Protein backbone atom coordinates (compact mmCIF):
# COMPACT_ATOMS: atom_id res chain seq x y z
CA UNK A 1 0.00 0.00 0.00
CA UNK A 2 1.53 3.28 -1.06
CA UNK A 3 0.51 6.26 1.03
CA UNK A 4 1.28 9.76 -0.12
CA UNK A 5 2.34 11.10 3.24
CA UNK A 6 3.04 14.56 1.93
CA UNK A 7 -0.44 14.80 0.43
CA UNK A 8 -2.26 13.70 3.59
CA UNK A 9 -0.14 16.03 5.72
CA UNK A 10 -0.66 18.94 3.32
CA UNK A 11 -4.41 18.39 3.43
CA UNK A 12 -4.34 18.23 7.23
CA UNK A 13 -2.49 21.56 7.37
CA UNK A 14 -5.45 23.07 5.54
CA UNK A 15 -7.93 21.43 7.89
CA UNK A 16 -9.10 19.17 5.09
CA UNK A 17 -9.29 15.37 4.97
CA UNK A 18 -8.95 13.01 2.00
CA UNK A 19 -12.48 11.66 2.64
CA UNK A 20 -13.86 15.20 3.05
CA UNK A 21 -14.78 14.79 6.71
CA UNK A 22 -14.62 17.62 9.22
CA UNK A 23 -11.69 17.41 11.69
CA UNK A 24 -13.96 16.25 14.52
CA UNK A 25 -16.29 14.07 12.48
CA UNK A 26 -16.42 10.27 12.75
CA UNK A 27 -16.90 8.03 9.76
CA UNK A 28 -20.17 6.08 9.50
CA UNK A 29 -20.52 3.77 12.51
CA UNK A 30 -22.47 0.51 12.30
CA UNK A 31 -23.03 -1.82 15.23
CA UNK A 32 -24.56 -5.26 15.10
CA UNK A 33 -25.48 -6.92 18.37
CA UNK A 34 -25.24 -10.71 18.82
CA UNK A 35 -24.25 -11.74 15.29
CA UNK A 36 -23.06 -15.12 16.65
CA UNK A 37 -24.78 -17.80 18.69
CA UNK A 38 -21.80 -19.61 20.25
CA UNK A 39 -20.31 -16.77 22.30
CA UNK A 40 -22.25 -15.51 25.31
CA UNK A 41 -22.12 -12.02 23.86
CA UNK A 42 -20.87 -10.70 20.54
CA UNK A 43 -20.85 -7.68 18.29
CA UNK A 44 -19.61 -6.53 14.92
CA UNK A 45 -18.60 -2.89 14.72
CA UNK A 46 -17.72 -1.04 11.56
CA UNK A 47 -16.22 2.43 11.61
CA UNK A 48 -15.92 3.24 7.93
CA UNK A 49 -14.05 0.27 6.50
CA UNK A 50 -12.55 -0.83 9.81
CA UNK A 51 -14.34 -3.97 10.93
CA UNK A 52 -13.97 -5.51 14.35
CA UNK A 53 -15.59 -8.48 16.05
CA UNK A 54 -15.88 -8.86 19.79
CA UNK A 55 -16.89 -12.08 21.53
CA UNK A 56 -17.51 -12.80 25.20
CA UNK A 57 -17.01 -16.32 26.52
CA UNK A 58 -17.74 -17.24 30.13
CA UNK A 59 -16.18 -20.14 31.98
CA UNK A 60 -15.78 -21.11 35.61
CA UNK A 61 -12.39 -20.93 37.31
CA UNK A 62 -10.46 -20.07 40.44
CA UNK A 63 -10.25 -16.40 41.52
CA UNK A 64 -6.96 -14.57 42.01
CA UNK A 65 -5.71 -14.86 45.61
CA UNK A 66 -5.80 -11.08 46.08
CA UNK A 67 -9.43 -10.72 44.95
CA UNK A 68 -11.10 -13.95 46.12
CA UNK A 69 -14.65 -12.69 45.69
CA UNK A 70 -14.37 -11.24 42.21
CA UNK A 71 -14.73 -12.73 38.77
CA UNK A 72 -11.76 -12.63 36.42
CA UNK A 73 -11.58 -10.49 33.29
CA UNK A 74 -9.20 -11.48 30.49
CA UNK A 75 -9.09 -9.31 27.38
CA UNK A 76 -7.25 -10.35 24.28
CA UNK A 77 -6.88 -8.94 20.78
CA UNK A 78 -5.80 -10.60 17.59
CA UNK A 79 -4.74 -8.86 14.40
CA UNK A 80 -5.77 -11.57 11.96
CA UNK A 81 -3.79 -11.48 8.70
CA UNK A 82 -7.15 -11.30 6.89
CA UNK A 83 -7.33 -7.69 8.06
CA UNK A 84 -4.49 -6.04 6.20
CA UNK A 85 -1.69 -6.72 3.71
CA UNK A 86 0.55 -5.17 6.40
CA UNK A 87 -0.06 -8.17 8.63
CA UNK A 88 1.56 -10.39 5.98
CA UNK A 89 4.67 -11.15 7.98
CA UNK A 90 2.90 -11.50 11.27
CA UNK A 91 0.86 -8.80 12.91
CA UNK A 92 2.64 -6.11 14.97
CA UNK A 93 2.59 -7.75 18.36
CA UNK A 94 3.24 -4.51 20.19
CA UNK A 95 0.15 -2.83 18.75
CA UNK A 96 -2.10 -5.86 19.36
CA UNK A 97 -0.92 -6.03 22.96
CA UNK A 98 -1.48 -2.32 23.48
CA UNK A 99 -4.97 -2.62 21.98
CA UNK A 100 -5.83 -5.56 24.24
CA UNK A 101 -4.59 -3.72 27.28
CA UNK A 102 -6.59 -0.60 26.42
CA UNK A 103 -9.76 -2.69 26.03
CA UNK A 104 -8.93 -4.52 29.25
CA UNK A 105 -8.34 -1.36 31.28
CA UNK A 106 -11.32 0.37 29.67
CA UNK A 107 -13.57 -2.33 31.16
CA UNK A 108 -11.59 -2.97 34.34
CA UNK A 109 -10.75 0.54 35.53
CA UNK A 110 -14.16 1.96 34.70
CA UNK A 111 -15.71 -0.83 36.81
CA UNK A 112 -18.01 -1.40 33.84
CA UNK A 113 -18.85 -4.85 35.18
CA UNK A 114 -19.60 -5.47 38.84
CA UNK A 115 -16.95 -8.16 39.19
CA UNK A 116 -18.15 -9.16 42.66
CA UNK A 117 -21.41 -10.32 41.10
CA UNK A 118 -19.35 -12.76 39.03
CA UNK A 119 -18.24 -14.57 42.18
CA UNK A 120 -19.82 -18.00 42.65
CA UNK A 121 -18.09 -19.24 45.83
CA UNK A 122 -15.61 -16.80 47.37
CA UNK A 123 -12.02 -17.95 47.03
CA UNK A 124 -13.03 -21.03 45.09
CA UNK A 125 -15.15 -20.51 42.03
CA UNK A 126 -15.81 -17.43 39.99
CA UNK A 127 -16.81 -16.64 36.43
CA UNK A 128 -13.89 -16.15 34.05
CA UNK A 129 -14.91 -13.57 31.48
CA UNK A 130 -12.92 -13.62 28.24
CA UNK A 131 -13.32 -10.63 25.99
CA UNK A 132 -11.76 -11.39 22.61
CA UNK A 133 -11.27 -8.81 19.89
CA UNK A 134 -10.79 -10.05 16.34
CA UNK A 135 -9.86 -7.52 13.65
CA UNK A 136 -11.29 -8.31 10.21
CA UNK A 137 -10.45 -5.22 8.19
CA UNK A 138 -8.01 -2.54 9.22
CA UNK A 139 -8.76 0.98 8.04
CA UNK A 140 -7.50 2.85 11.07
CA UNK A 141 -8.83 3.67 14.52
CA UNK A 142 -9.05 0.08 15.68
CA UNK A 143 -9.10 1.20 19.30
CA UNK A 144 -12.43 3.04 19.19
CA UNK A 145 -13.99 0.24 17.14
CA UNK A 146 -12.70 -2.42 19.52
CA UNK A 147 -13.86 -0.67 22.69
CA UNK A 148 -17.28 -0.11 21.08
CA UNK A 149 -17.47 -3.77 20.05
CA UNK A 150 -16.43 -4.98 23.49
CA UNK A 151 -18.97 -2.76 25.24
CA UNK A 152 -21.70 -3.83 22.82
CA UNK A 153 -20.89 -7.50 23.42
CA UNK A 154 -21.00 -6.93 27.19
CA UNK A 155 -24.42 -5.33 26.76
CA UNK A 156 -25.92 -8.24 24.85
CA UNK A 157 -24.11 -11.07 26.67
CA UNK A 158 -26.17 -13.63 28.54
CA UNK A 159 -24.76 -15.92 31.18
CA UNK A 160 -25.06 -19.68 30.73
CA UNK A 161 -26.57 -21.72 33.55
CA UNK A 162 -24.25 -23.26 36.09
CA UNK A 163 -25.41 -25.93 38.52
CA UNK A 164 -22.27 -25.90 40.65
CA UNK A 165 -20.63 -28.62 38.61
CA UNK A 166 -21.21 -28.06 34.94
CA UNK A 167 -21.94 -25.14 32.68
CA UNK A 168 -24.96 -25.57 30.43
CA UNK A 169 -24.21 -23.46 27.38
CA UNK A 170 -27.57 -24.39 25.85
CA UNK A 171 -29.45 -22.26 28.37
CA UNK A 172 -28.40 -18.63 28.64
CA UNK A 173 -30.67 -16.15 30.40
CA UNK A 174 -29.22 -13.69 32.90
CA UNK A 175 -27.54 -10.54 31.67
CA UNK A 176 -24.08 -9.52 32.83
CA UNK A 177 -23.97 -7.05 35.76
CA UNK A 178 -23.08 -4.10 33.52
CA UNK A 179 -22.80 -0.79 35.36
CA UNK A 180 -21.17 1.47 32.80
CA UNK A 181 -20.69 1.59 29.04
CA UNK A 182 -17.14 2.79 28.44
CA UNK A 183 -16.30 4.18 25.00
CA UNK A 184 -13.01 5.41 23.58
CA UNK A 185 -12.40 8.44 21.40
CA UNK A 186 -9.11 8.64 19.50
CA UNK A 187 -7.54 11.81 18.18
CA UNK A 188 -4.55 12.23 15.87
CA UNK A 189 -2.25 15.18 15.47
CA UNK A 190 -0.80 15.64 11.98
CA UNK A 191 1.54 18.60 11.88
CA UNK A 192 -0.44 21.15 13.84
CA UNK A 193 -3.85 19.88 12.83
CA UNK A 194 -5.86 17.66 15.14
CA UNK A 195 -8.54 15.27 13.91
CA UNK A 196 -10.72 12.51 15.36
CA UNK A 197 -11.12 8.91 14.09
CA UNK A 198 -8.00 8.66 11.87
CA UNK A 199 -8.16 6.39 8.81
CA UNK A 200 -5.38 3.90 8.07
CA UNK A 201 -3.66 6.50 5.87
CA UNK A 202 -4.00 9.22 8.46
CA UNK A 203 -2.64 7.02 11.23
CA UNK A 204 0.40 6.24 9.05
CA UNK A 205 1.35 9.93 8.93
CA UNK A 206 0.23 11.04 12.39
CA UNK A 207 2.74 12.65 14.71
CA UNK A 208 0.90 11.92 17.92
CA UNK A 209 -2.29 10.21 19.02
CA UNK A 210 -4.49 10.42 22.07
CA UNK A 211 -7.17 7.98 23.14
CA UNK A 212 -9.55 8.99 25.92
CA UNK A 213 -12.14 6.59 27.34
CA UNK A 214 -15.14 7.90 29.21
CA UNK A 215 -18.07 6.52 31.18
CA UNK A 216 -21.79 7.31 31.08
CA UNK A 217 -21.33 9.93 33.84
CA UNK A 218 -18.76 11.76 31.73
CA UNK A 219 -15.85 10.75 33.93
CA UNK A 220 -12.61 9.80 32.23
CA UNK A 221 -11.56 6.22 32.90
CA UNK A 222 -8.51 5.81 30.67
CA UNK A 223 -6.05 7.89 28.65
CA UNK A 224 -3.34 6.66 26.31
CA UNK A 225 -1.00 8.92 24.37
CA UNK A 226 0.73 7.38 21.36
CA UNK A 227 2.94 8.43 18.47
CA UNK A 228 6.39 9.94 18.21
CA UNK A 229 5.60 13.55 18.98
CA UNK A 230 4.14 15.33 22.00
CA UNK A 231 1.06 17.39 22.77
CA UNK A 232 1.11 20.76 24.44
CA UNK A 233 -0.73 21.05 27.71
CA UNK A 234 -3.34 23.24 25.98
CA UNK A 235 -3.99 20.60 23.34
CA UNK A 236 -4.46 17.94 25.98
CA UNK A 237 -6.96 20.06 27.89
CA UNK A 238 -8.95 20.73 24.74
CA UNK A 239 -8.99 17.08 23.67
CA UNK A 240 -10.06 15.78 27.07
CA UNK A 241 -13.11 18.03 26.79
CA UNK A 242 -13.83 16.93 23.21
CA UNK A 243 -13.58 13.27 24.25
CA UNK A 244 -16.22 13.64 26.96
CA UNK A 245 -18.54 15.29 24.46
CA UNK A 246 -18.00 12.84 21.60
CA UNK A 247 -18.09 9.85 23.94
CA UNK A 248 -21.73 10.68 24.68
CA UNK A 249 -22.60 10.43 20.97
CA UNK A 250 -20.82 7.10 20.57
CA UNK A 251 -22.59 5.72 23.62
CA UNK A 252 -25.95 6.56 22.09
CA UNK A 253 -25.14 4.48 19.04
CA UNK A 254 -24.71 1.42 21.25
CA UNK A 255 -28.47 1.16 21.81
CA UNK A 256 -29.18 0.78 18.11
CA UNK A 257 -28.61 -2.42 16.21
CA UNK A 258 -27.55 -1.89 12.63
CA UNK A 259 -28.07 -5.59 11.97
CA UNK A 260 -25.79 -6.34 9.10
CA UNK A 261 -23.80 -9.51 8.93
CA UNK A 262 -21.84 -8.10 6.05
CA UNK A 263 -18.44 -6.75 6.83
Amino acid at each position, binding site marked *: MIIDEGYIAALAAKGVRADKRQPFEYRKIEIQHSP*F*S*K*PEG*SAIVKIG*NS*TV*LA*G*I*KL*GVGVPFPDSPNEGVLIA*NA*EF*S*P*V*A*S*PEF*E*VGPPEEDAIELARIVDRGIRESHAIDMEKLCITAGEKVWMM*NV*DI*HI*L*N*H*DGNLIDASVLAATAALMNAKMPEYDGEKIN*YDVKKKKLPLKWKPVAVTFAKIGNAIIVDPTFEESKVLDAGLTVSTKDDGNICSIQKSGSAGFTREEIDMLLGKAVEMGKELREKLSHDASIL*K*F
Partner: protein
Amino acid sequence: MTMATRVDGRKADEIRKLHIEAGVLPNATGSALVSLGETIALAAVYGPRMLHPKHLQASDKAVLSTVYSMVPFGTTERNRPGPSRRSIEIGKVTRQALEPAVFLAEFPKTTIDVFINILQADAGTRTAGINAASVALADAGIPMRDLVVAIAAGKIEGEYAIDLNGKEEELTDCDMPIAYMPKDNRITLLQMDGDMPLDDVRKVLDLSMKSCMQLYEAQKLALRNRWIKAAQQQEARTEG
Protein backbone atom coordinates in the same frame (compact mmCIF):
# COMPACT_ATOMS: atom_id res chain seq x y z
CA MET B 1 -26.46 -48.99 4.06
CA THR B 2 -29.59 -47.21 5.23
CA MET B 3 -30.18 -43.51 5.54
CA ALA B 4 -30.30 -41.64 8.83
CA THR B 5 -33.21 -39.61 10.20
CA ARG B 6 -32.12 -36.39 11.83
CA VAL B 7 -32.98 -34.18 14.79
CA ASP B 8 -33.31 -31.04 12.69
CA GLY B 9 -35.62 -32.75 10.23
CA ARG B 10 -33.13 -32.82 7.40
CA LYS B 11 -32.92 -35.76 5.07
CA ALA B 12 -29.75 -37.86 5.26
CA ASP B 13 -28.41 -36.30 2.06
CA GLU B 14 -29.54 -32.76 2.79
CA ILE B 15 -27.01 -30.04 3.60
CA ARG B 16 -27.68 -27.30 6.13
CA LYS B 17 -28.85 -23.81 5.24
CA LEU B 18 -26.14 -22.42 2.99
CA HIS B 19 -25.13 -18.83 2.42
CA ILE B 20 -22.14 -17.71 0.36
CA GLU B 21 -21.08 -14.13 -0.14
CA ALA B 22 -18.05 -13.00 -2.10
CA GLY B 23 -16.08 -9.80 -1.67
CA VAL B 24 -16.76 -9.06 1.98
CA LEU B 25 -13.37 -7.60 3.04
CA PRO B 26 -12.27 -4.32 1.40
CA ASN B 27 -8.54 -4.79 2.09
CA ALA B 28 -8.16 -8.34 0.77
CA THR B 29 -7.50 -9.10 -2.92
CA GLY B 30 -10.41 -11.51 -2.68
CA SER B 31 -12.64 -12.73 0.12
CA ALA B 32 -15.71 -14.79 0.88
CA LEU B 33 -17.98 -15.67 3.76
CA VAL B 34 -19.61 -19.10 3.88
CA SER B 35 -22.18 -20.13 6.43
CA LEU B 36 -23.47 -23.66 6.60
CA GLY B 37 -26.00 -23.78 9.41
CA GLU B 38 -24.25 -22.33 12.45
CA THR B 39 -20.78 -22.89 11.01
CA ILE B 40 -19.33 -19.67 9.59
CA ALA B 41 -16.06 -19.53 7.65
CA LEU B 42 -14.36 -16.44 6.29
CA ALA B 43 -11.55 -16.58 3.75
CA ALA B 44 -9.26 -13.77 2.63
CA VAL B 45 -6.82 -14.00 -0.26
CA TYR B 46 -3.81 -11.70 -0.55
CA GLY B 47 -1.59 -11.83 -3.60
CA PRO B 48 0.00 -12.90 -5.79
CA ARG B 49 2.75 -10.89 -4.10
CA MET B 50 6.54 -11.26 -4.04
CA LEU B 51 7.64 -13.89 -1.56
CA HIS B 52 10.28 -12.94 1.02
CA PRO B 53 12.76 -14.18 2.05
CA LYS B 54 13.93 -15.18 -1.42
CA HIS B 55 14.96 -18.74 -0.58
CA LEU B 56 11.31 -19.61 -0.03
CA GLN B 57 10.42 -18.65 -3.60
CA ALA B 58 9.74 -21.20 -6.32
CA SER B 59 11.30 -20.09 -9.59
CA ASP B 60 8.63 -21.73 -11.74
CA LYS B 61 5.40 -21.07 -9.86
CA ALA B 62 3.58 -19.27 -7.09
CA VAL B 63 3.67 -20.77 -3.64
CA LEU B 64 0.18 -21.26 -2.24
CA SER B 65 0.05 -20.74 1.48
CA THR B 66 -2.98 -21.53 3.62
CA VAL B 67 -3.51 -20.72 7.27
CA TYR B 68 -6.56 -22.12 9.06
CA SER B 69 -7.51 -20.63 12.40
CA MET B 70 -10.49 -20.24 14.66
CA VAL B 71 -11.62 -17.21 16.63
CA PRO B 72 -11.41 -17.86 20.38
CA PHE B 73 -15.16 -17.35 20.82
CA GLY B 74 -16.20 -19.58 17.93
CA THR B 75 -16.72 -22.72 20.01
CA THR B 76 -18.83 -23.69 23.01
CA GLU B 77 -15.81 -23.66 25.28
CA ARG B 78 -13.41 -20.84 24.47
CA ASN B 79 -10.51 -22.16 22.45
CA ARG B 80 -7.09 -20.70 22.92
CA PRO B 81 -5.77 -18.64 20.01
CA GLY B 82 -2.59 -19.73 18.22
CA PRO B 83 -1.80 -22.71 16.00
CA SER B 84 -2.62 -26.18 17.28
CA ARG B 85 -1.57 -29.53 15.81
CA ARG B 86 -5.12 -29.81 14.45
CA SER B 87 -5.08 -26.40 12.75
CA ILE B 88 -1.65 -27.02 11.23
CA GLU B 89 -2.80 -30.31 9.71
CA ILE B 90 -6.00 -28.71 8.39
CA GLY B 91 -3.92 -25.89 6.90
CA LYS B 92 -1.89 -28.50 5.03
CA VAL B 93 -4.76 -30.59 3.64
CA THR B 94 -6.62 -27.40 2.73
CA ARG B 95 -3.63 -26.20 0.73
CA GLN B 96 -3.43 -29.56 -1.04
CA ALA B 97 -7.16 -29.44 -1.75
CA LEU B 98 -6.81 -26.04 -3.45
CA GLU B 99 -3.49 -26.41 -5.28
CA PRO B 100 -4.84 -28.55 -8.12
CA ALA B 101 -7.31 -25.77 -8.96
CA VAL B 102 -4.95 -22.80 -9.21
CA PHE B 103 -2.74 -21.98 -12.22
CA LEU B 104 0.27 -21.45 -9.98
CA ALA B 105 2.74 -21.50 -12.87
CA GLU B 106 1.45 -18.10 -13.99
CA PHE B 107 3.00 -16.28 -11.03
CA PRO B 108 6.56 -17.50 -10.42
CA LYS B 109 8.41 -16.22 -7.32
CA THR B 110 5.22 -15.01 -5.69
CA THR B 111 3.05 -16.20 -2.87
CA ILE B 112 -0.71 -16.42 -2.85
CA ASP B 113 -1.84 -16.30 0.77
CA VAL B 114 -5.14 -17.77 1.81
CA PHE B 115 -6.24 -17.04 5.37
CA ILE B 116 -9.23 -18.93 6.70
CA ASN B 117 -10.91 -17.73 9.88
CA ILE B 118 -13.57 -19.94 11.37
CA LEU B 119 -15.87 -17.38 12.99
CA GLN B 120 -18.18 -20.02 14.40
CA ALA B 121 -17.68 -23.78 14.61
CA ASP B 122 -20.57 -26.19 14.51
CA ALA B 123 -18.94 -29.12 12.66
CA GLY B 124 -17.72 -29.16 9.08
CA THR B 125 -15.32 -26.25 9.55
CA ARG B 126 -12.54 -27.51 7.28
CA THR B 127 -14.93 -28.05 4.38
CA ALA B 128 -16.66 -24.70 4.99
CA GLY B 129 -13.20 -23.13 4.95
CA ILE B 130 -12.31 -24.77 1.62
CA ASN B 131 -15.55 -23.53 0.03
CA ALA B 132 -14.84 -20.02 1.32
CA ALA B 133 -11.25 -20.18 0.05
CA SER B 134 -12.36 -21.36 -3.39
CA VAL B 135 -14.74 -18.41 -3.80
CA ALA B 136 -12.18 -15.98 -2.35
CA LEU B 137 -9.53 -17.13 -4.84
CA ALA B 138 -11.98 -16.61 -7.71
CA ASP B 139 -13.00 -13.23 -6.24
CA ALA B 140 -9.31 -12.28 -6.21
CA GLY B 141 -9.21 -12.86 -9.96
CA ILE B 142 -6.70 -15.67 -9.69
CA PRO B 143 -6.89 -17.95 -12.75
CA MET B 144 -8.37 -21.32 -11.76
CA ARG B 145 -8.99 -24.62 -13.54
CA ASP B 146 -12.18 -25.05 -11.56
CA LEU B 147 -13.81 -24.17 -8.28
CA VAL B 148 -13.19 -26.54 -5.38
CA VAL B 149 -16.23 -27.69 -3.47
CA ALA B 150 -16.14 -29.57 -0.20
CA ILE B 151 -18.47 -31.36 2.17
CA ALA B 152 -18.18 -33.82 5.03
CA ALA B 153 -20.18 -36.96 5.73
CA GLY B 154 -20.64 -38.91 8.93
CA LYS B 155 -22.78 -41.42 10.75
CA ILE B 156 -25.91 -40.94 12.86
CA GLU B 157 -27.00 -43.93 14.92
CA GLY B 158 -25.17 -46.25 12.59
CA GLU B 159 -26.49 -44.69 9.43
CA TYR B 160 -24.73 -42.33 7.07
CA ALA B 161 -25.60 -38.69 6.57
CA ILE B 162 -24.23 -35.60 4.89
CA ASP B 163 -23.07 -32.38 6.59
CA LEU B 164 -23.46 -33.26 10.27
CA ASN B 165 -24.00 -30.38 12.67
CA GLY B 166 -22.23 -30.12 16.01
CA LYS B 167 -24.83 -32.00 18.05
CA GLU B 168 -24.86 -34.83 15.52
CA GLU B 169 -21.08 -34.95 15.37
CA GLU B 170 -20.75 -35.34 19.15
CA LEU B 171 -22.49 -38.70 18.93
CA THR B 172 -20.37 -40.21 16.17
CA ASP B 173 -16.74 -41.02 15.60
CA CYS B 174 -17.02 -41.27 11.88
CA ASP B 175 -15.98 -38.30 9.78
CA MET B 176 -15.24 -38.23 6.06
CA PRO B 177 -14.58 -34.85 4.47
CA ILE B 178 -13.92 -34.57 0.75
CA ALA B 179 -13.02 -31.77 -1.63
CA TYR B 180 -13.84 -32.08 -5.29
CA MET B 181 -13.25 -30.34 -8.61
CA PRO B 182 -16.30 -31.32 -10.68
CA LYS B 183 -15.07 -30.31 -14.15
CA ASP B 184 -12.18 -32.79 -14.19
CA ASN B 185 -13.60 -35.29 -11.72
CA ARG B 186 -10.73 -34.74 -9.26
CA ILE B 187 -10.94 -35.57 -5.58
CA THR B 188 -8.44 -33.16 -4.06
CA LEU B 189 -9.06 -33.84 -0.38
CA LEU B 190 -10.14 -37.10 1.17
CA GLN B 191 -9.90 -37.93 4.81
CA MET B 192 -11.68 -40.50 6.88
CA ASP B 193 -11.67 -41.49 10.51
CA GLY B 194 -13.88 -44.20 11.83
CA ASP B 195 -14.59 -47.80 11.07
CA MET B 196 -16.26 -48.52 7.75
CA PRO B 197 -16.42 -51.49 5.42
CA LEU B 198 -14.99 -50.79 1.98
CA ASP B 199 -18.42 -50.78 0.36
CA ASP B 200 -19.79 -48.19 2.74
CA VAL B 201 -16.89 -45.86 1.98
CA ARG B 202 -17.76 -46.04 -1.68
CA LYS B 203 -21.46 -45.38 -1.08
CA VAL B 204 -20.77 -42.43 1.18
CA LEU B 205 -18.49 -41.04 -1.51
CA ASP B 206 -21.46 -41.20 -3.90
CA LEU B 207 -23.61 -39.25 -1.44
CA SER B 208 -20.96 -36.61 -0.84
CA MET B 209 -20.22 -36.06 -4.49
CA LYS B 210 -23.91 -35.44 -5.11
CA SER B 211 -23.97 -32.73 -2.43
CA CYS B 212 -20.84 -31.25 -3.91
CA MET B 213 -22.78 -30.34 -7.05
CA GLN B 214 -25.16 -28.27 -4.93
CA LEU B 215 -22.25 -26.36 -3.45
CA TYR B 216 -20.83 -25.93 -6.93
CA GLU B 217 -23.94 -24.09 -8.08
CA ALA B 218 -24.00 -22.00 -4.91
CA GLN B 219 -20.37 -20.95 -5.34
CA LYS B 220 -20.99 -19.94 -8.93
CA LEU B 221 -24.10 -17.97 -7.98
CA ALA B 222 -22.25 -16.09 -5.25
CA LEU B 223 -19.52 -15.11 -7.71
CA ARG B 224 -22.09 -14.00 -10.26
CA ASN B 225 -23.79 -11.78 -7.67
CA ARG B 226 -20.47 -10.36 -6.70
CA TRP B 227 -19.61 -9.43 -10.27
CA ILE B 228 -23.01 -7.87 -10.91
CA LYS B 229 -22.65 -5.77 -7.78
CA ALA B 230 -19.12 -4.75 -8.70
CA ALA B 231 -20.30 -3.72 -12.15
CA GLN B 232 -23.12 -1.67 -10.66
CA GLN B 233 -20.74 0.08 -8.28
CA GLN B 234 -18.40 0.78 -11.16
CA GLU B 235 -21.23 2.25 -13.16
CA ALA B 236 -22.43 4.36 -10.23
CA ARG B 237 -18.91 5.69 -9.80
CA THR B 238 -18.60 6.54 -13.47
CA GLU B 239 -21.92 8.36 -13.47
CA GLY B 240 -21.35 10.02 -10.08
